[in-house]
Structures are given as structure tokens and as C-alpha cells.
């Protein structure tokens, strides 16, 4: 190693590396919220019961249209207490699944959390500055026409697929909840 490299390595880069390592704290990587903690945050004052909604062919078609890919699920379970429900679904962003928790109060989104994020890019979607856009969002449309949210969700450059995953899961949850209430499931 030449003297010049040694000099600016020692003066410039090494302090940055040491600072970075010093500021790091060991934690379980990629897991930002455990399921138990998510449910506790969703239902702070009650014990929810588990319900199941079956994905028949008609519902599967609507879900495939929302997510733009075939849907591999026979049934979806969720938690309910009163007028509130909580859902945990996995959807692939670019190439790895994102575990997304959604809480609905009435027919509007009350909370959305990225529980596990496994991808190299798109980390922005797990932070409130992005997920807060979903708060209060409701479903528009029916199974006869395109389903969507009644609020604009601005994307993030380089994270389009992760953004689409969260948007898709939110629409899926609101649609399934509407179906569950309509069919009495």
C-alpha cells in the first residue's frame, strides 16, 4: 500500500467506517415488528378473535386484477374485535416478500406497518413518511369495476415495486373486508 493511500485511508475513510460501525446496534435484521407486537398495537384494549375468508373464483379474479398477478391463496385469516380488523399479508416487491400488517377501523385504514422487509432497495416504504399516506384511505369501486383507493399514494424512485406491494395489499384487505361483511363470513 502506497504512502498516499495509507494517508487518506487513515485520515478520511477509516474514521467514517469506525463511526458507522460504532453507531450500529445489533438487532434482528429485516424484522421491524413482530406479529404479537403488531396485534397488541392494533387491539390495545381487547382480545381479537380469528376469522377466515375463503377465496372463491370470483374473489380470486378481483385480487388478481388488483395485484396484477395470479393469487395463490385458498383462504385468508384475519383478526377482528368490534368494528376493527387486522390483517398480515405477504406480497413480493421486487424479488422478496414484504410482510405487511394492515389495520382497518370501520372501512378506513387505521394503521399500516411493514413487519418484515427483505429487499436491498425500497427501504423507504417501511417508514411513516411513506405509510402515513394510507391512513384514512377507503376502497372505491366494486368487483364489477376497477378497485382502488380514494387517496393518492405518491411513489418513491427506485422503490416502485415495493410501493406497489403496499398499495396492492391495502386494496386487497379493504376488498376482502367488504366481502366478509357482505357474506357474513
Amino acid at each position: 500500500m502506497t504512502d498516499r493511500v495509507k494517508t487518506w485511508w487513515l485520515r478520511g475513510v477509516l474514521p467514517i467506517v469506525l463511526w458507522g460501525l460504532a453507531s450500529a446496534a445489533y438487532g434482528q435484521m429485516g424484522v421491524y415488528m413482530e406479529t404479537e407486537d403488531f396485534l397488541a398495537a392494533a387491539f390495545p384494549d381487547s382480545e381479537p378473535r380469528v376469522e377466515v375468508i375463503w377465496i372463491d373464483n370470483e374473489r380470486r379474479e378481483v385480487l388478481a386484477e388488483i395485484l396484477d398477478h395470479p393469487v395463490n391463496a385458498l383462504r385468508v385469516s384475519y383478526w377482528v374485535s368490534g368494528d376493527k380488523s387486522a390483517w398480515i399479508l405477504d406480497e413480493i416487491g421486487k424479488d422478496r416478500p414484504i410482510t405487511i400488517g394492515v389495520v382497518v377501523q370501520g372501512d378506513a385504514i387505521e394503521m399500516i406497518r411493514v413487519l418484515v422487509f427483505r429487499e436491498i432497495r425500497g427501504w423507504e416504504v417501511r417508514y411513516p413518511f411513506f405509510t402515513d399516506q394510507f391512513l384514512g384511505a377507503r376502497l372505491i369501486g366494486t368487483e364489477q369495476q376497477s378497485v382502488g383507493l380514494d387517496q393518492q399514494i405518491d411513489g418513491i424512485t427506485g422503490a416502485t415495486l415495493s410501493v406497489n406491494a403496499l398499495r396492492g395489499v391495502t386494496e386487497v384487505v379493504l376488498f376482502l373486508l367488504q366481502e366478509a361483511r357482505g357474506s357474513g363470513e
Partner: protein
Amino acid sequence: MNRISIISLLFATTNSFPTAAQETESLQETLERQQAQIDALQEQLDATADFIEAGSVTQLNRTQLQERDVGSQTSIGGYGELHYNNLDATDPDNNTDKMDFHRFVLFFAHEFNDRVSFFSELEVEHSLAGEGKDGEVEIEQAFIQVNLSNELAVQGGLFVLPVGILNETHEPTTFYGVERNAIESAIVPATWWEGGAQLVGNNESGLSWNAGFHSGLEMYTSGSKAFRVRKGRQKVSNAVATDFAFTGRLRYTGIPGLDVAASWQYQSDPSAKPGDGLDDGAMIEAHMIYTNGPFQLRTLYAGWEFTGEVVEAAGVASQSGFYIEPSWRLNERWGTFARFEDVDGAVAGDQFEEFRAGVSYFAHPNAVFKVDVANRDYTQLSKEGSSYTGFNVGMAYQF
């Protein structure tokens, strides 16, 4: 009929018809039997669903919505693009009529555990590689990422440098235009990868940062490739590593729809040869992407400053470029854009202004057909005959 007969008849009649209570009890028993059958059928249905779902990755309390077997820790992805260029130059001898499968790329990623993952990108350019062929087979990324905390990770291996817009996000479905912009070719030589290590951090404010220590350029100081940054990429192929480089970036994406970033890079010896008149170099790059509904505006500036007797004498110690690109996503299927670029590189071929405009048809969010028209004016008289007007058609996909 005597009284006894009547009484007998009445008694017999009464016993032949069930009482209301008996009917109720009978109905109750029927309902209970039917409920038991329903419960049994539900158990069978649940057992069948459990059996089917056991072969997939769906778990009862965490439903996997997509067909892909993400129970596997390894994933495959990719992108590619085909170009057709029809360009009429001022001098017809410089016309371009060409079709080229410009890039065929495969990603392979593997998740060792919640903390450690591997990511790679393998590319074939121009369809054919080998002696006398135009193409290349290249490893553009191959690094291990270790997550040190929820906000900090370290990457080690071969990685794309955190500079520009396209260098990290270069899937052809993510940008308008058949061809990439020229600033992120001549000034920021995307796609630009080096070997080394970098720290990657972010926090809930939306601020992220990169600090990387990596192999450097080996620029030419004579001949037709002299001082051209793009020609100095070693691509981590038996790369000379006597002099390293450093790249740092600050980026802010804390407001949805806004992406602003600035990068700084220092090359301690861009030619990897001390005393040849190209001593060191530093690049700054800054860009902004603003998206509001269907409207997006991109703008980027990048510039190099080199030191050294020879590079200064050649008059190319400063090289820079910028572009601005508004675009409009008309609907789910169609988008349109316009782009103005001004490049001032090391050679006459990298000194021009260009205007380009076109449309993209999104057959699927990840499958796009593009058409654009372009007008390029070279600023040097020696290249005036190469100035052109023409159109380009492209196909792009990613998965």
C-alpha cells in the same frame, strides 16, 4: 258409536299426530345432526386446505398472495431491452440503421438469514460476446450485505456505485426513452461498478447515506480513449488496485414524490499510473426527481475536475453535463416525455446537445414498448457530420 269407541278413536288419533313439543324436539334433533355434519364438512375442508397449503408458503396467519415459492431463500429476476435506431446524420455516411439486443440481465439473490444476503447481476450485452464480437458478458453486481441494525448495513464485494439516478436503478422499464441519457454515460459512466465495501444507512426522516471505499478507474492518457471516464472503468476484471477511490452520497426521500441526492467521488489516481500527468480527480453529482400524480420532473448535473499537467494541457480537466426531463403518465398504459441534454466530455464525440421526445406503452407495468425521436447537435466542427435526427424504437421488460 258409543262413548268408548269415541274415546278410543280420539285416543288413537291423538297418538297418531305428534305434539307441538314433539315436533320441536324433532326439529331440534335434525338441526343438531345437520350442524354436526356442517362441522364435520368444515373440518374436512380445513384439513384439505391445510394439506394443499402445506405445499406452498402460505401460513394461516401470514398469507402469501403470490405464486412464487418464496419459501425458497433464492430468487431470480432480470431485465432486458431491444433497441432499433434509425438516425439520419448530416453526413449520410454516418447514418445509423441498427437493431441490437442491448442488454440481457439476470439477477440472482439469496437470503442466508435475516441479517445476511447475497445479490448479483449478470449481463450479456449486444447478444454475442467473444473474439471479434460486439458483446460482453459481465458481472455487474455480486456482493454480500450484512445488516448491522435496522438502519445500517455493510456491503462487500462488487457493487454499483451510489452516483446518479440510473447507476442504481437502471431497469429499462424505470426510465423514458429508448436510450439512456448521455450524461449518465459519458460523465457518470453508468452502469459503473467497482469492488470494495460500503456502508449504507437510512433513518425514519427519509435521509439515507452511503460511504464506499473501492477500486478506482484506469483512464487512458493518450490515444482516442484519452481522458474518457467511461473508458477508464476496469469492471473489477484483474483491476489495478494500487490506488483506491471513495464515494459518498446523501439522499433524501422523506417527502413522498421527492427524491434529491448529491454524490461526491474522489479518485486518488484516475489512470492508476503515477506521474503520467493525470494526478487525481473528483466528481460531484446532484439530481432531483419530483413526482406529483402523473407528472414527473427529472434533472441531473454531474461534473469532473481532474488535476495533472497532461490532462490540463489537453483542455479536458473539467468535464460535465446536465439534463432535464419532464414526463407525463397519461394513464395506466401510456406515458410521454421530453428530454434536453448538454454534455461536455473529453472528446468531440462526447460534446453535444440533444433533444429527445417520445412515448411509452405499458403493456404491463414491467413490459414496455418505447418510441422516441431525437435530434443531436455536436458542438465541435470535427463532428458536425455526425449530428443527426432520427427515431428509435425499443422493447423493455423486467421481472
